[in-house]
């Protein structure tokens, strides 16, 4: 749970930053856009468990004393790298869903590109992608189980330990229940948000 929270707090702004980089216009920013695209493609392409293993086992094994040795640290880094790629795509879809006329209106007032993005485009984009963002939260919450392979003791790892001590499968059920107890409320909350948005839009259309 701590893992999930720490990772999420870093992912949300990092992914937004990446999405903004990717929406920079003009040939001047081509290298930055290309890098952002390469990053997203790479980390969406590699299975999460591989990223976790490469970083979690590989980094400490390099034996560089200035690198953190903690498995928890590398677990967070791995999850952040992978989920930033996914979440940035969600943000990007949100940014692209804001009609260009909104930016035209903002620019026509004399707002700079950055100001238009900050005050007009992003607030609308982020509001629209909250449901899919929560969906990715649920995925992240579940994927914290993969980190157990590193020896970080999260719910799944704890269940494995208890199961091998007692030869009793119940701990797995308990772990599963724990995950579901967190993800189901998140899922219902997402549905509620989507429903509220829809009612609002309809009310807007009727008014």
């Amino acid at each position, binding site marked *: 749970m701590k893992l999930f929270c720490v990772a999420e707090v870093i992912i949300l702004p990092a992914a937004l930053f990446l999405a903004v980089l990717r929406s920079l216009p003009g040939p001047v920013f081509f290298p930055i856009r290309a890098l952002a695209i390469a990053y997203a493609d790479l980390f969406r392409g590699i299975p999460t468990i591989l990223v976790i293993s490469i970083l979690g086992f590989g980094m400490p094994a390099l034996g560089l004393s200035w690198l953190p040795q903690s498995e928890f640290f590398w677990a967070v880094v791995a999850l952040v790298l992978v989920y930033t790629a996914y979440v940035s795509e969600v943000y990007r879809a949100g940014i692209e869903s804001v009609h260009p*006329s*909104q930016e*035209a*209106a*903002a*620019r*026509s*007032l*004399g*707002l*700079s590109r950055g*100001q238009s993005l900050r*005050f*007009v485009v992003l*607030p*609308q984009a982020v*509001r629209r992608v909250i449901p899919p963002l929560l969906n990715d939260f649920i995925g992240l919450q579940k994927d914290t189980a993969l980190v157990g392979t590193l020896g970080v003791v999260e719910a799944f790892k704890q269940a494995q330990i208890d199961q091998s001590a007692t030869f009793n499968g119940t701990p797995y059920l308990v772990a599963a229940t724990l995950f579901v107890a967190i993800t189901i409320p998140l899922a219902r909350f997402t549905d509620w948000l989507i429903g509220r948005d829809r009612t609002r839009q309809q*009310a*807007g*259309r009727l*008014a």
Partner: protein
Amino acid sequence: MSEALRIEGVHKSFGKLEVLRGIDLAVGEHEVVCLIGASGSGKSTLLRCVNRLEPIQAGRIFVGGNEITAPNVDVNAIRRRIGIVFQSFNLFPHMSVLHNVTLGPRKVLGLVGDQAEAEATALLDRFGLADKRDEFPDRLSGGQQQRVAIVRALAMRPELLLLDEVTSALDPELVAEVLDVIRELADGGMTMVIATHEMGFARDTASRVCFLDAGTILEEGPPGQIFSAPREPRTQQFLQRIVDAGRL
């Protein structure tokens, strides 16, 4: 009369399609110029070029004597001086009416919140929108939204106001309230260039009417002449069709 806007030999293409084919136009201060013509004749594109929302391929545009099409001019500074109102309102849906109107003055003109709000409230009051101050755009009628959009442009104290078919997206019974606002601005001496399909309005309000056809200004003159004695056969044809449709 000093010059508010001068357009010289402007060409604009979207890919291979040439939309503006050499436009020349001068607008004096306090003048109201209406652009009429069929859809696709280039009226909207011309307005968008004047506030640099569209890059042009050739020609020059001057606002208040300063060339705005020169390389290295500050685009944001130009847009500060020119207001534009769009056919589809383009209000910011996530902001209240007041916030829509004060965004530009606060972020671009650098007014403090109180002053921006006081000025915005005065403007909203002037156009009968005082009670809508805290509403969100989706709670307003089309006519109210368009009036807010006009107020938003006015809050920047522009020296030139461009209106791009501002009543075309409105239900017929809401057109009048928006046209009344524009008439009031004209009476107040606001310099305006108006692309419109409202011929009656153009006849009554414009100081000059330009008929655009296929990316050129085919004919221009005082509304009396253009509407009652058009010289060009294309203008005659266009106006005849509008009369036949019962729109004039």
